């Protein structure tokens, strides 16, 4: 068992608060992704779990044992770093063996562990090379191998794919998923890339300014973002946001801004009642806006002017001017010719609307 429990964990550098009151429980063999923009505290949290940073307050427990004051070497963890951190004066074989030799594992067991890891990661022909003789992808595999050979309780990944080009990154994502199946271990993966987070994580922890914004499965975060930050961070292209005024209109609420008005039935959106006479932020994902007039009463019409089109081959992305604002539409037929300035009509299913007040989704 290697569950990880973070209780009220704080990290302060002088007067700067890096991480505030993190409470997180990670189950045995679960793969959790910490995601957020640069400086949000995700790497600091990982380093605190690794023992590379002291904790200002709170406790961290691995496998039921509080590890606050344990050295990194005594926590039974393995870590992959952004820049691989291979020992450049050693061969690949020695890199893999380093941790085992430190723990005085017998030579024949080290050889067997290296052979197994090399087979899993297809690095057998590289064992006698030095790190500088390897490509980025090969170095990353060796770094993974260094973790596997130790058979630790926990894998920690600190943005391990950031230094790879887009193609290799996609490939390594797949390899990581395969690796999870072959070596099921409790893992924490830090990234700023929401695609990596969505594709790899059993659960995702979204962080901003040292504070956890939401914890959930990828679909939970995509479908029910806790606040506007999570809504904008998860999903690509980013969610559209429009600030609309709310007024009561019989059994409906009327929402509108300059250039866009629509009505929603009050019985389906009772929470809007508390915002009558005020503004509200409405979010809708670009994938949920479809070209064409509404086909039923559950869809809201949009009329706008095409500003920019982006051709992706399998789809087009549109940036459409809507009153004073702008919304993006994804999933448009790539063969459709939509010159700049052309008028379009689109529809949004009301089921896909997200409403946010200043802080959270309502």
């Amino acid at each position, binding site marked *: 068992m290697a569950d990880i429990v973070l209780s009220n964990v704080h990290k302060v550098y002088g007067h700067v608060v890096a991480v505030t009151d993190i409470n997180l429980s990670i189950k045995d063999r679960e793969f959790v992704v910490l995601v957020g923009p640069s400086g949000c505290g995700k790497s600091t949290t990982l380093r605190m779990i690794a023992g590379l940073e002291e904790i200002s307050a709170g406790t961290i427990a691995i496998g039921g044992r509080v590890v606050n004051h344990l050295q*990194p070497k005594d926590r039974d963890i393995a870590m992959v770093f952004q820049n*691989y951190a291979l020992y450049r004066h050693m061969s690949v074989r020695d890199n893999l063996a380093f941790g085992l030799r430190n723990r005085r594992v017998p030579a024949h067991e080290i050889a067997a562990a290296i052979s197994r890891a090399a087979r899993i990661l297809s690095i057998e022909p590289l064992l006698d090379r030095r790190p500088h003789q390897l490509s980025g992808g090969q170095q990353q595999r060796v770094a993974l191998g260094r973790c596997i050979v130790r058979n630790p309780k926990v894998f920690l990944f600190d943005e391990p794919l950031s230094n790879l080009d887009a193609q290799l990154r996609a490939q390594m994502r797949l390899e990581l998923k395969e690796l999870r199946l072959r070596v099921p271990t409790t893992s924490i993966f830090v990234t700023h890339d929401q695609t990596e987070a969505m594709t790899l994580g059993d659960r995702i922890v979204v962080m901003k300014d040292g504070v956890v914004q939401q914890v959930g499965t990828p679909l939970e975060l995509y479908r029910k973002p806790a606040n506007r930050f999570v809504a904008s961070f998860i999903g690509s292209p980013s969610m559209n946001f429009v600030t609309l005024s709310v007024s009561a209109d019989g059994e409906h609420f009327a929402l509108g801004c300059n250039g866009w008005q629509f009505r929603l039935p009050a019985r389906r959106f009772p929470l809007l009642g508390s915002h009558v006479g005020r503004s509200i932020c409405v979010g809708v994902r670009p994938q949920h806006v479809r070209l064409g007039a509404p086909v039923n009463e559950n869809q809201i019409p949009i009329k706008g002017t095409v500003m920019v089109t982006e051709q992706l081959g399998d789809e087009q992305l549109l940036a459409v001017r809507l009153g004073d604002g702008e919304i993006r539409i994804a999933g448009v037929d790539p063969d459709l010719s939509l010159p700049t300035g052309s008028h379009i009509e689109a529809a949004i299913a009301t089921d896909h609307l997200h409403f946010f007040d200043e802080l959270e989704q309502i």
Partner: protein
Amino acid sequence: MFFALAAIAVCLLFAFPVFWLVLTSLRPGTGVYYVHRGTEFTIDNFHEVLSQEIVLRALFNSFMISTLATVLSLGVTATSGYMLSRFKGPIPNAWFSLIYIFRCVPYVAWVLPLYFVTQELHIFDSYWGLLLPHIAVHICFFSWIMKGFFDGIDPSMEYAAMIDGCSRWGAFWRVAMPAAIPGLTALATLCWLYTWNEFLFALILTAHETPILTVVMAQFVHELGMEWHLMSATAVIALVPALIVTLFGQRYVIRGLRI
């Protein structure tokens, strides 16, 4: 083409005094004042200086002092540079300030106090009497350079080592130090050459018991006259180990100082 010619001209400019020194060392005592005209050459000067016991002792002492000062300085300088590079807090800050203050003191100003200190500690005219001041100077001058070397080494390697079972000291010794070998070699070369060529400390802090080559060389100018031919021969002898160390270390010096 212009730059190549300019480079050759600069090289010749620097090489000329050495060429003149070698030429002088090969001239008889009477010929040193008309080196450019004479045709008589001899290696008797080398025989003469190498037959003097004090020159041989000075050669040995200079070699030992340079080597010991390099080894001992590097031990302290490497850890000092590592601390300045990797750690933040009052102790590294205080150490940094101390080094900075000592660097600000003119080199010559150290000599007289050091003379009294070595007298007081009864280590005047001994290996330790010369080694300790050299090590102190090296720490102040080379800790900064060593910090630069370690700044250029990714600390993730050490973190990985700490997770792989090393203590902080183990990570320094087994991962950071091997990675810093080009820098350490460069520093060792500079350190050795600096001590080998040093004159002022050797002149003030040693006497007859521990003759040092640079001082012995200067003693060929005395009240009875100036024996330029013998001084030049000794200088050429002194040049050989320095040349070997330079040739060995130049690759690392260039690479190390580029980090």
